[in-house]
Protein backbone atom coordinates (compact mmCIF):
# COMPACT_ATOMS: atom_id res chain seq x y z
CA UNK A 1 0.00 0.00 0.00
CA UNK A 2 1.08 3.49 -0.67
CA UNK A 3 -0.51 6.66 -1.49
CA UNK A 4 -2.29 9.83 -0.96
CA UNK A 5 -4.72 9.35 1.94
CA UNK A 6 -4.65 12.28 4.35
CA UNK A 7 -2.61 11.26 7.44
CA UNK A 8 -5.53 12.20 9.70
CA UNK A 9 -8.24 10.60 7.61
CA UNK A 10 -10.77 8.81 9.86
CA UNK A 11 -8.55 9.48 12.87
CA UNK A 12 -10.25 9.24 16.28
CA UNK A 13 -10.80 12.53 18.17
CA UNK A 14 -8.32 11.34 20.79
CA UNK A 15 -5.38 9.01 20.02
CA UNK A 16 -5.97 5.42 21.17
CA UNK A 17 -3.76 3.48 23.54
CA UNK A 18 -2.14 1.58 20.69
CA UNK A 19 0.08 3.15 18.06
CA UNK A 20 -1.67 2.96 14.69
CA UNK A 21 -0.21 3.14 11.19
CA UNK A 22 -1.44 6.14 9.20
CA UNK A 23 -4.29 5.52 6.75
CA UNK A 24 -3.26 4.52 3.27
CA UNK A 25 -4.75 3.85 -0.11
CA UNK A 26 -3.88 1.03 -2.49
CA UNK A 27 -1.04 1.95 -4.85
CA UNK A 28 -3.43 1.35 -7.75
CA UNK A 29 -6.24 3.50 -6.34
CA UNK A 30 -6.47 5.52 -9.53
CA UNK A 31 -6.46 2.47 -11.77
CA UNK A 32 -10.03 1.23 -11.40
CA UNK A 33 -12.28 2.13 -14.30
CA UNK A 34 -14.72 3.95 -12.01
CA UNK A 35 -11.99 6.06 -10.42
CA UNK A 36 -10.47 6.87 -13.83
CA UNK A 37 -13.88 8.11 -14.98
CA UNK A 38 -14.19 10.26 -11.86
CA UNK A 39 -10.67 11.68 -12.29
CA UNK A 40 -11.48 12.48 -15.91
CA UNK A 41 -14.63 14.24 -14.72
CA UNK A 42 -12.58 16.27 -12.22
CA UNK A 43 -9.98 17.06 -14.88
CA UNK A 44 -12.60 18.71 -17.09
CA UNK A 45 -12.35 21.64 -14.64
CA UNK A 46 -8.99 22.50 -16.25
CA UNK A 47 -10.67 22.76 -19.65
CA UNK A 48 -13.36 25.09 -18.28
CA UNK A 49 -10.66 27.25 -16.71
CA UNK A 50 -8.99 27.57 -20.12
CA UNK A 51 -12.37 28.28 -21.76
CA UNK A 52 -12.75 31.08 -19.20
CA UNK A 53 -9.41 32.58 -20.28
CA UNK A 54 -10.49 32.45 -23.96
CA UNK A 55 -13.78 34.15 -23.06
CA UNK A 56 -11.96 36.92 -21.16
CA UNK A 57 -9.62 37.41 -24.13
CA UNK A 58 -12.60 37.73 -26.49
CA UNK A 59 -14.34 40.25 -24.20
CA UNK A 60 -11.16 42.34 -24.02
CA UNK A 61 -10.87 42.24 -27.81
CA UNK A 62 -14.48 43.38 -28.07
CA UNK A 63 -13.72 46.29 -25.75
CA UNK A 64 -10.69 47.29 -27.83
CA UNK A 65 -12.67 47.84 -31.01
CA UNK A 66 -13.68 46.26 -34.30
CA UNK A 67 -10.13 45.58 -35.51
CA UNK A 68 -9.11 43.73 -32.38
CA UNK A 69 -12.35 41.76 -32.44
CA UNK A 70 -11.84 40.68 -36.06
CA UNK A 71 -8.25 39.65 -35.30
CA UNK A 72 -9.39 37.63 -32.29
CA UNK A 73 -12.12 35.96 -34.32
CA UNK A 74 -9.60 35.12 -37.02
CA UNK A 75 -7.23 33.58 -34.48
CA UNK A 76 -10.01 31.18 -33.46
CA UNK A 77 -9.71 29.58 -36.90
CA UNK A 78 -6.29 28.27 -35.91
CA UNK A 79 -6.36 24.43 -35.81
CA UNK A 80 -5.12 24.51 -32.20
CA UNK A 81 -8.17 26.56 -31.17
CA UNK A 82 -10.47 24.32 -33.20
CA UNK A 83 -8.97 21.25 -31.49
CA UNK A 84 -9.36 22.91 -28.09
CA UNK A 85 -13.00 23.76 -28.73
CA UNK A 86 -13.65 20.21 -29.91
CA UNK A 87 -12.11 18.95 -26.66
CA UNK A 88 -14.31 21.40 -24.73
CA UNK A 89 -17.39 20.11 -26.52
CA UNK A 90 -16.50 16.51 -25.70
CA UNK A 91 -15.89 17.40 -22.05
CA UNK A 92 -19.23 19.25 -21.82
CA UNK A 93 -21.05 16.24 -23.28
CA UNK A 94 -19.20 13.91 -20.88
CA UNK A 95 -20.05 16.03 -17.82
CA UNK A 96 -23.67 16.47 -18.91
CA UNK A 97 -24.19 12.75 -19.51
CA UNK A 98 -22.64 11.92 -16.12
CA UNK A 99 -24.75 14.58 -14.40
CA UNK A 100 -27.94 13.38 -16.11
CA UNK A 101 -27.17 9.78 -15.09
CA UNK A 102 -26.80 10.70 -11.41
CA UNK A 103 -29.46 13.43 -11.26
CA UNK A 104 -32.56 11.26 -10.57
CA UNK A 105 -31.09 9.69 -7.43
CA UNK A 106 -30.37 13.12 -5.93
CA UNK A 107 -34.06 14.05 -6.03
CA UNK A 108 -35.96 14.07 -2.72
CA UNK A 109 -38.61 11.35 -2.44
CA UNK A 110 -41.27 14.06 -2.33
CA UNK A 111 -41.76 17.81 -2.12
CA UNK A 112 -44.96 18.21 -0.17
CA UNK A 113 -47.54 16.10 -1.98
CA UNK A 114 -45.48 16.06 -5.20
CA UNK A 115 -43.39 13.03 -6.06
CA UNK A 116 -40.64 13.11 -8.68
CA UNK A 117 -41.38 11.21 -11.87
CA UNK A 118 -39.60 7.87 -12.47
CA UNK A 119 -35.88 8.00 -13.33
CA UNK A 120 -36.30 7.27 -17.07
CA UNK A 121 -38.81 10.14 -17.37
CA UNK A 122 -36.37 12.54 -15.65
CA UNK A 123 -33.60 11.31 -17.99
CA UNK A 124 -35.79 11.82 -21.05
CA UNK A 125 -36.81 15.33 -19.89
CA UNK A 126 -33.20 16.35 -19.23
CA UNK A 127 -32.04 15.16 -22.65
CA UNK A 128 -35.05 16.78 -24.37
CA UNK A 129 -34.34 20.15 -22.73
CA UNK A 130 -30.62 19.87 -23.49
CA UNK A 131 -31.19 19.04 -27.15
CA UNK A 132 -33.90 21.72 -27.45
CA UNK A 133 -31.69 24.47 -25.97
CA UNK A 134 -28.76 23.38 -28.18
CA UNK A 135 -30.93 23.53 -31.33
CA UNK A 136 -32.35 26.97 -30.43
CA UNK A 137 -28.87 28.37 -29.65
CA UNK A 138 -27.41 26.91 -32.85
CA UNK A 139 -30.21 28.45 -34.93
CA UNK A 140 -29.79 31.79 -33.15
CA UNK A 141 -26.01 31.80 -33.69
CA UNK A 142 -26.50 30.87 -37.36
CA UNK A 143 -28.85 33.85 -37.74
CA UNK A 144 -31.83 31.69 -38.71
CA UNK A 145 -33.93 32.89 -35.79
CA UNK A 146 -33.96 36.11 -33.71
Amino acid at each position, binding site marked *: *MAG*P*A*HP*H*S*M*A*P*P*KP*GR*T*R*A*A*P*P*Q*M*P*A*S*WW*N*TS*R*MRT*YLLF*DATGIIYLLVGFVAIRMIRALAEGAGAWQAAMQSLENPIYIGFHLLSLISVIFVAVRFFR*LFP*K*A*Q*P*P*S*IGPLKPPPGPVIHAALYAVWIGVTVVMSLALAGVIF
Partner: protein
Amino acid sequence: MSSTNTGEAIAPTQKTIIITRFDPDKDEVPRKQEYSVPCEDNWKVLDAVNFIKDELDATVSHRWSCRMAVCGSCGMMVNGEPKLTCKTSLKEYGDRVDIEPLANFPIVRDLVVELDGFMHKFEAVKPWIKRAKEKAEDKAALHDTKLTFSQSAEELGNFKQFSMCINCMLCYSACPVVANEPDFLGPAAIALGHRYNMDSRDEGNAERNEIFRGEGTVFSCSFANECSEVCPKNVDPAAAVNQAKFEAVIDWAKGLVLPSPSSGGSN
Protein backbone atom coordinates in the same frame (compact mmCIF):
# COMPACT_ATOMS: atom_id res chain seq x y z
CA MET B 1 -12.63 -30.47 -1.04
CA SER B 2 -15.65 -29.05 -2.93
CA SER B 3 -17.59 -30.97 -5.57
CA THR B 4 -19.57 -30.36 -8.77
CA ASN B 5 -23.32 -30.97 -9.20
CA THR B 6 -22.55 -34.51 -10.32
CA GLY B 7 -20.62 -35.17 -7.15
CA GLU B 8 -17.23 -35.03 -8.87
CA ALA B 9 -14.54 -33.72 -6.51
CA ILE B 10 -12.71 -30.51 -7.48
CA ALA B 11 -9.10 -30.23 -6.38
CA PRO B 12 -8.20 -27.07 -4.46
CA THR B 13 -6.45 -24.33 -6.45
CA GLN B 14 -3.20 -23.04 -5.01
CA LYS B 15 -3.33 -19.25 -4.74
CA THR B 16 -0.87 -16.75 -3.30
CA ILE B 17 -2.66 -14.59 -0.74
CA ILE B 18 -0.76 -11.43 0.14
CA ILE B 19 -1.70 -10.02 3.52
CA THR B 20 -0.75 -6.59 4.86
CA ARG B 21 0.95 -7.07 8.22
CA PHE B 22 1.46 -4.41 10.87
CA ASP B 23 2.45 -5.01 14.46
CA PRO B 24 2.56 -1.68 16.32
CA ASP B 25 5.21 -3.10 18.70
CA LYS B 26 7.58 -4.20 15.92
CA ASP B 27 6.80 -2.53 12.61
CA GLU B 28 7.38 1.09 11.72
CA VAL B 29 5.17 0.80 8.64
CA PRO B 30 2.86 -1.90 7.28
CA ARG B 31 4.56 -4.65 5.26
CA LYS B 32 3.35 -7.47 3.01
CA GLN B 33 3.49 -11.19 3.71
CA GLU B 34 2.69 -13.91 1.20
CA TYR B 35 0.94 -17.20 1.96
CA SER B 36 0.34 -20.12 -0.37
CA VAL B 37 -3.22 -21.28 0.24
CA PRO B 38 -5.05 -24.33 -1.21
CA CYS B 39 -8.34 -22.61 -2.09
CA GLU B 40 -11.57 -24.51 -2.57
CA ASP B 41 -13.72 -23.58 -5.56
CA ASN B 42 -16.59 -22.29 -3.42
CA TRP B 43 -14.50 -20.23 -1.02
CA LYS B 44 -15.09 -16.60 -0.25
CA VAL B 45 -12.10 -14.32 0.32
CA LEU B 46 -12.77 -14.50 4.06
CA ASP B 47 -12.36 -18.31 3.95
CA ALA B 48 -8.82 -17.86 2.67
CA VAL B 49 -7.95 -15.37 5.42
CA ASN B 50 -9.49 -17.68 8.02
CA PHE B 51 -7.47 -20.60 6.59
CA ILE B 52 -4.27 -18.57 6.98
CA LYS B 53 -5.20 -17.66 10.55
CA ASP B 54 -6.23 -21.21 11.49
CA GLU B 55 -3.64 -23.29 9.62
CA LEU B 56 -0.65 -21.19 8.59
CA ASP B 57 -0.09 -18.19 10.84
CA ALA B 58 -2.09 -17.61 14.01
CA THR B 59 -0.62 -14.11 14.41
CA VAL B 60 -2.65 -12.70 11.49
CA SER B 61 -5.35 -10.37 12.86
CA HIS B 62 -8.63 -9.62 11.12
CA ARG B 63 -12.25 -8.93 12.02
CA TRP B 64 -15.13 -11.14 11.03
CA SER B 65 -18.29 -12.54 12.57
CA CYS B 66 -21.49 -13.54 10.78
CA ARG B 67 -20.22 -14.81 7.39
CA MET B 68 -23.49 -13.77 5.74
CA ALA B 69 -23.04 -10.07 4.91
CA VAL B 70 -25.01 -8.82 7.88
CA CYS B 71 -22.55 -7.81 10.59
CA GLY B 72 -20.31 -5.64 8.40
CA SER B 73 -17.11 -6.69 10.21
CA CYS B 74 -15.07 -8.22 7.41
CA GLY B 75 -14.58 -5.26 5.07
CA MET B 76 -11.09 -5.29 3.51
CA MET B 77 -9.37 -4.10 0.37
CA VAL B 78 -9.19 -6.99 -2.10
CA ASN B 79 -6.90 -6.26 -5.04
CA GLY B 80 -7.37 -2.57 -4.34
CA GLU B 81 -11.18 -2.59 -4.10
CA PRO B 82 -13.15 -2.31 -0.85
CA LYS B 83 -15.05 -5.58 -0.45
CA LEU B 84 -17.08 -7.41 2.13
CA THR B 85 -14.87 -10.50 2.16
CA CYS B 86 -17.59 -12.93 3.27
CA LYS B 87 -19.61 -11.97 0.19
CA THR B 88 -16.78 -11.93 -2.35
CA SER B 89 -15.96 -15.13 -4.22
CA LEU B 90 -12.27 -15.96 -4.32
CA LYS B 91 -12.61 -17.42 -7.80
CA GLU B 92 -13.28 -13.91 -9.16
CA TYR B 93 -9.55 -13.30 -8.69
CA GLY B 94 -6.43 -14.73 -10.26
CA ASP B 95 -3.55 -16.62 -8.68
CA ARG B 96 -2.42 -13.67 -6.54
CA VAL B 97 -4.86 -11.93 -4.27
CA ASP B 98 -3.76 -8.83 -2.38
CA ILE B 99 -5.69 -8.31 0.86
CA GLU B 100 -5.19 -5.01 2.70
CA PRO B 101 -6.93 -3.21 5.56
CA LEU B 102 -9.65 -0.75 4.55
CA ALA B 103 -8.14 2.29 2.86
CA ASN B 104 -8.43 5.72 4.55
CA PHE B 105 -8.52 4.24 8.07
CA PRO B 106 -5.62 4.17 10.57
CA ILE B 107 -4.31 0.61 10.86
CA VAL B 108 -4.36 -0.87 14.36
CA ARG B 109 -2.90 -4.24 13.43
CA ASP B 110 -2.67 -6.25 10.19
CA LEU B 111 -6.18 -6.08 8.65
CA VAL B 112 -7.80 -4.41 11.65
CA VAL B 113 -8.55 -0.69 11.36
CA GLU B 114 -9.27 2.02 13.92
CA LEU B 115 -13.04 2.53 14.30
CA ASP B 116 -13.19 5.39 16.80
CA GLY B 117 -13.08 8.11 14.15
CA PHE B 118 -15.96 6.45 12.34
CA MET B 119 -18.03 6.09 15.52
CA HIS B 120 -17.39 9.75 16.36
CA LYS B 121 -18.70 10.84 12.94
CA PHE B 122 -21.67 8.52 13.33
CA GLU B 123 -22.64 10.04 16.66
CA ALA B 124 -22.32 13.55 15.23
CA VAL B 125 -25.47 13.16 13.08
CA LYS B 126 -27.64 12.17 16.08
CA PRO B 127 -28.77 8.84 14.63
CA TRP B 128 -31.80 8.27 16.79
CA ILE B 129 -35.43 9.39 16.75
CA LYS B 130 -35.68 12.85 18.24
CA ARG B 131 -39.02 14.11 19.49
CA ALA B 132 -39.54 17.81 20.08
CA LYS B 133 -40.98 17.01 23.50
CA GLU B 134 -42.43 14.00 25.13
CA LYS B 135 -46.07 13.84 24.20
CA ALA B 136 -48.89 12.04 25.94
CA GLU B 137 -49.50 10.00 22.84
CA ASP B 138 -45.85 8.88 22.82
CA LYS B 139 -46.43 7.01 26.06
CA ALA B 140 -49.60 5.48 24.71
CA ALA B 141 -47.78 4.53 21.55
CA LEU B 142 -45.35 2.41 23.52
CA HIS B 143 -48.25 0.09 24.21
CA ASP B 144 -50.18 0.48 20.99
CA THR B 145 -48.14 0.63 17.81
CA LYS B 146 -51.16 1.82 15.83
CA LEU B 147 -50.95 5.20 17.54
CA THR B 148 -48.24 7.87 17.17
CA PHE B 149 -45.43 5.65 15.93
CA SER B 150 -47.45 3.89 13.27
CA GLN B 151 -46.10 4.45 9.80
CA SER B 152 -47.52 3.81 6.37
CA ALA B 153 -45.67 1.66 3.86
CA GLU B 154 -45.11 4.80 1.81
CA GLU B 155 -43.57 6.65 4.76
CA LEU B 156 -41.34 3.68 5.47
CA GLY B 157 -40.38 3.50 1.80
CA ASN B 158 -38.96 7.04 1.99
CA PHE B 159 -36.05 5.88 4.14
CA LYS B 160 -36.02 2.08 4.29
CA GLN B 161 -33.22 1.80 1.76
CA PHE B 162 -30.97 4.01 3.92
CA SER B 163 -31.68 1.97 7.04
CA MET B 164 -30.18 -1.17 5.47
CA CYS B 165 -26.61 0.03 6.14
CA ILE B 166 -24.52 -2.52 8.05
CA ASN B 167 -21.71 -0.08 8.91
CA CYS B 168 -19.13 -2.06 6.96
CA MET B 169 -17.30 1.21 6.12
CA LEU B 170 -16.53 0.20 2.52
CA CYS B 171 -18.01 3.53 1.42
CA TYR B 172 -15.43 5.40 3.54
CA SER B 173 -12.65 3.43 1.86
CA ALA B 174 -13.96 4.22 -1.61
CA CYS B 175 -14.72 7.91 -1.06
CA PRO B 176 -12.12 10.32 -2.52
CA VAL B 177 -13.34 13.09 -0.20
CA VAL B 178 -12.79 10.98 2.93
CA ALA B 179 -9.23 10.40 1.71
CA ASN B 180 -8.52 14.11 1.54
CA GLU B 181 -10.77 15.84 4.07
CA PRO B 182 -10.36 14.39 7.58
CA ASP B 183 -13.37 16.35 8.87
CA PHE B 184 -15.78 15.02 6.26
CA LEU B 185 -18.61 13.16 8.01
CA GLY B 186 -18.64 10.62 5.21
CA PRO B 187 -21.26 8.63 3.32
CA ALA B 188 -22.59 6.19 5.92
CA ALA B 189 -22.97 8.77 8.70
CA ILE B 190 -24.75 11.26 6.44
CA ALA B 191 -26.96 8.49 5.01
CA LEU B 192 -27.94 7.53 8.54
CA GLY B 193 -28.68 11.13 9.52
CA HIS B 194 -30.75 11.50 6.36
CA ARG B 195 -32.55 8.24 7.18
CA TYR B 196 -33.77 9.79 10.45
CA ASN B 197 -34.63 13.07 8.74
CA MET B 198 -36.90 11.12 6.39
CA ASP B 199 -38.52 9.17 9.22
CA SER B 200 -42.09 10.41 9.80
CA ARG B 201 -41.74 9.76 13.55
CA ASP B 202 -38.69 11.99 13.89
CA GLU B 203 -38.72 15.70 14.72
CA GLY B 204 -34.99 16.40 14.69
CA ASN B 205 -34.71 17.57 11.06
CA ALA B 206 -33.88 21.17 11.90
CA GLU B 207 -31.06 20.12 14.22
CA ARG B 208 -29.57 17.64 11.75
CA ASN B 209 -29.95 20.03 8.82
CA GLU B 210 -28.04 22.60 10.86
CA ILE B 211 -25.24 20.01 11.19
CA PHE B 212 -25.49 19.18 7.49
CA ARG B 213 -25.04 22.84 6.55
CA GLY B 214 -21.79 23.02 8.54
CA GLU B 215 -18.30 22.43 7.24
CA GLY B 216 -17.20 18.93 6.25
CA THR B 217 -20.67 17.60 5.71
CA VAL B 218 -23.00 17.20 2.76
CA PHE B 219 -21.58 20.05 0.68
CA SER B 220 -18.08 18.55 0.81
CA CYS B 221 -19.41 15.63 -1.24
CA SER B 222 -18.41 15.90 -4.90
CA PHE B 223 -20.87 13.19 -5.98
CA ALA B 224 -18.17 10.79 -7.12
CA ASN B 225 -20.75 8.04 -6.48
CA GLU B 226 -17.96 5.64 -5.43
CA CYS B 227 -19.71 4.97 -2.10
CA SER B 228 -22.79 3.63 -3.86
CA GLU B 229 -20.73 1.61 -6.31
CA VAL B 230 -19.01 -0.37 -3.54
CA CYS B 231 -21.94 -0.66 -1.10
CA PRO B 232 -22.63 -4.39 -0.59
CA LYS B 233 -26.22 -3.75 0.57
CA ASN B 234 -27.30 -1.34 -2.19
CA VAL B 235 -27.97 1.40 0.35
CA ASP B 236 -26.94 4.05 -2.19
CA PRO B 237 -25.32 6.52 0.25
CA ALA B 238 -24.58 8.92 -2.62
CA ALA B 239 -28.33 9.33 -3.10
CA ALA B 240 -28.77 10.01 0.63
CA VAL B 241 -25.98 12.59 0.74
CA ASN B 242 -27.29 14.45 -2.28
CA GLN B 243 -30.90 14.32 -1.11
CA ALA B 244 -29.63 15.66 2.23
CA LYS B 245 -28.05 18.60 0.36
CA PHE B 246 -31.44 19.45 -1.10
CA GLU B 247 -33.23 19.07 2.25
CA ALA B 248 -30.60 21.21 4.03
CA VAL B 249 -31.03 24.02 1.50
CA ILE B 250 -34.85 23.87 1.62
CA ASP B 251 -34.70 23.90 5.41
CA TRP B 252 -32.42 26.96 5.30
CA ALA B 253 -34.75 28.73 2.84
CA LYS B 254 -37.78 27.94 5.01
CA GLY B 255 -35.92 29.43 7.97
CA LEU B 256 -35.68 32.75 6.10
CA VAL B 257 -39.42 33.13 5.73
CA LEU B 258 -40.96 31.00 8.46
CA PRO B 259 -40.52 31.13 12.24
CA SER B 260 -37.86 28.58 13.25
CA PRO B 261 -39.43 25.25 14.22
CA SER B 262 -38.82 23.98 17.73
CA SER B 263 -36.10 21.38 17.52
CA GLY B 264 -35.39 21.11 21.21
CA GLY B 265 -35.82 18.00 23.25
CA SER B 266 -33.39 16.10 25.29
CA ASN B 267 -33.78 12.62 23.83
